[in-house]
């Protein structure tokens, strides 16, 4: 539920999975967030995704030393999601389909859960606000966009990341696509056979150097580079040579003005599906060399969809801060079709830069380079 307990779990290699916390005929492990989410005062019909986002935002703001924002600070909000953007409430639709007049609670919840709007209104900030819905790269893209706002002077501070809740509809969807595993996922492993779904939120507070200096806050990390690229190839399958991912990584390296050798480790998308891991592993090995320190954290969280990019950006930053990265949960045997072996145990790192990659439905690819500056 917070960074401290997450670090403890990662260090211990704990994987907190369960069966889906809602009615479904699908038997597959999922990764729910444990513990009670905070109430949102004054907001009825709060979606779980919004609650997850606010929990992460509150912790991120606290760690940035920001209790609230003054009127002299322009604050943007850019958050990624998938679930919160869809009106897909099954009880509502079942009653509608039967010719009834279903209660509108589910609709109000949906309308109140546009993350960018809802969070900006709750925080009473008036900078740019966006909700990015690029499927599984949403969170990474949101951070890239927010970093651009800060660089261009559109805001002094930006709240950026992603959030998504577990839901029956995507569970059925990924199952129908045949990309879910009925056991714990094993990214980049020889025996990988699909992903697990999870939920959560990961948020960064980005701030311009000028703004941080004004309030006497020392910045310890920076978004050094962001890149994105389209496969323009297929709706659900990655380009076989990872064309879009390669373009995204190259663009991020260019913006950071660094070479591949400067990257200390890769927090890979690593879903555990056959296609994703084969393509992503090949691209990462080609760009960074087969010996690059790499991991997927989806073995700990499941695939949190629109939340994944935000959560994995936080994990990447924690790796730089803590000086170690966890084992790539689920990995045991090197895959014959992947020229990359993720870490099988917690590993010390001493890096200035690290990269987090995201691949998504629709051929979206994104790469985010974070830098430790202090």
């Amino acid at each position, binding site marked *: 539920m917070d960074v401290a307990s997450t670090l403890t779990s990662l260090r211990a290699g704990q994987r907190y999975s369960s069966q889906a916390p809602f009615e*479904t*005929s*699908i038997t597959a492990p999922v990764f729910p967030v444990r513990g009670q989410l905070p109430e949102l005062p004054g907001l009825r019909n709060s979606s779980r995704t919004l609650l997850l986002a606010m929990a992460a935002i509150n912790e991120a703001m606290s760690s940035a030393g920001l209790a609230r924002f003054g009127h002299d600070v322009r604050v943007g909000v850019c958050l990624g*999601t*998938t679930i919160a*953007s*869809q*009106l*897909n409430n*099954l009880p509502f*639709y*079942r009653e*509608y*389909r039967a010719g009834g*007049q279903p209660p*509108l609670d589910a609709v109000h919840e949906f*309308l109140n859960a*546009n993350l960018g*709007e809802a969070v900006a209104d709750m925080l009473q900030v*008036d900078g740019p606000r*966006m*909700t*990015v*819905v*690029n*499927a599984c790269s949403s969170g990474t*893209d949101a951070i890239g*966009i927010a970093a*651009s*706002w800060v*660089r*261009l*002077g*559109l805001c002094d501070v930006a709240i950026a990341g992603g959030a998504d809740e577990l839901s*029956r*509809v*995507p*569970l*059925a*969807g990924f*199952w*129908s*696509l045949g990309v879910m595993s009925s056991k714990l996922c094993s990214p980049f492993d020889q025996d990988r056979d699909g992903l697990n779904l999870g939920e959560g939120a990961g948020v960064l507070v980005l701030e311009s150097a000028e703004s941080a200096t004004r309030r006497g806050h020392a910045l310890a990390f920076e978004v050094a580079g962001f*890149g*994105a*690229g*389209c*496969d*323009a*190839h297929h*709706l659900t399958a990655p380009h076989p040579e990872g*064309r*879009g991912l390669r*373009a995204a990584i190259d*663009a991020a390296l260019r913006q950071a003005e660094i070479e591949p050798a400067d990257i200390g480790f890769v927090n890979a998308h690593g879903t555990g599906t056959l296609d994703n891991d084969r393509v992503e592993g090949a691209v990462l090995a080609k760009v960074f060399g087969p010996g690059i320190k790499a991991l997927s954290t989806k073995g700990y969280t499941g695939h949190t969809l629109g939340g994944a990019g935000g959560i994995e950006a936080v994990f990447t930053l924690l790796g730089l801060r803590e000086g170690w990265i966890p084992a790539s949960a689920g990995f045991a045997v090197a895959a014959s079709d992947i020229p990359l072996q993720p870490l099988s145990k917690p590993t010390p790192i001493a890096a200035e830069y690290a990269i987090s990659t995201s691949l*998504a*439905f*629709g*051929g*979206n690819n994104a790469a985010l380079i974070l830098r430790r500056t202090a």
Partner: protein
Amino acid sequence: MSEPTCQAVPPASVLGVGAVTPIGRTLESIAVALAERAAQSQSPLLVADELLSDATTARRMRRAGRWASLAATAATDAWTGAQHAFHDDGDVGVIVATGFGPHVRTFRFLDGILDCGDASALPTDFSHSVHNVAAAYITELLGLRGRSCTLADFEAGFHQAVLLGQCWLAEGACSRVLLGAVDELGEVLLHLAGRMTDPADRVLPGEGAVFVTLGKGGISGTAQIDALSIPTHSDLLVVDEPPMHHHGAPPTIDGGTPATFTPYFGHSASSLALQTLGALLAVSKRFTPANVGRPIDSAIVRRRLWNGRHVELALAARPSC
């Protein structure tokens, strides 16, 4: 509150426009309908199916739902009709804004769950219910390999898309950005519109898609669009609000001679884009707004939001040198 001036993000040039609307698809036919004040009498305002049939893309779009087809049709027109011939070197960006996304396809997937069970719903319906499916079709159809982003917002999505497009151009991440907004009016949404709006507001449910191809600002012979720096006055102020505000006495609004294109395009989460289409056609001299009575060179498009804020887009003609 409108966005402040930001010198680092200049306006963009509109190089191409594509649209599918309840009053037509070609810019010529839409301009004629606006000039003749041929407001639609039926409700809701739907896009005619035949406007979406395109022999060159039919096979590649055969699995796409109506929402993705609306977007792909408008985006293709905005790209292929763009001025200034251009070769994509992987630096063309695509941005799609929507309020409700492919909700008809989402409900079809829910039909599959309810009728066949969780494990047996149709995967094609699921993959086509994801919001970035339109962007995926657009990038694949047009072979665009730059960055792509889909934004969800019930009111200001097109404004956000223009703002993001300007940022991508300003930072040099893209040399061109193909961006727009799309929303479809399905049965469930129509049901909700009937239950959740006050008849006194005279809400006119509609649908449509508008896309523009943007390049860096200052290109002569194009319209300039800006989501950041809004002048205090223009020739035309296009207001995107329920029509109740435009009956009876004209509203007193600062910024220019007021107008709205709601009677032609209806209300939708993408209506800001459709209002901007009308303003673009006026600024590019394709029609003359009747209440102005002369060709116009500038317009502001304003949308007041539920939470009391408003967003604005500024349009200005940049004559040929």
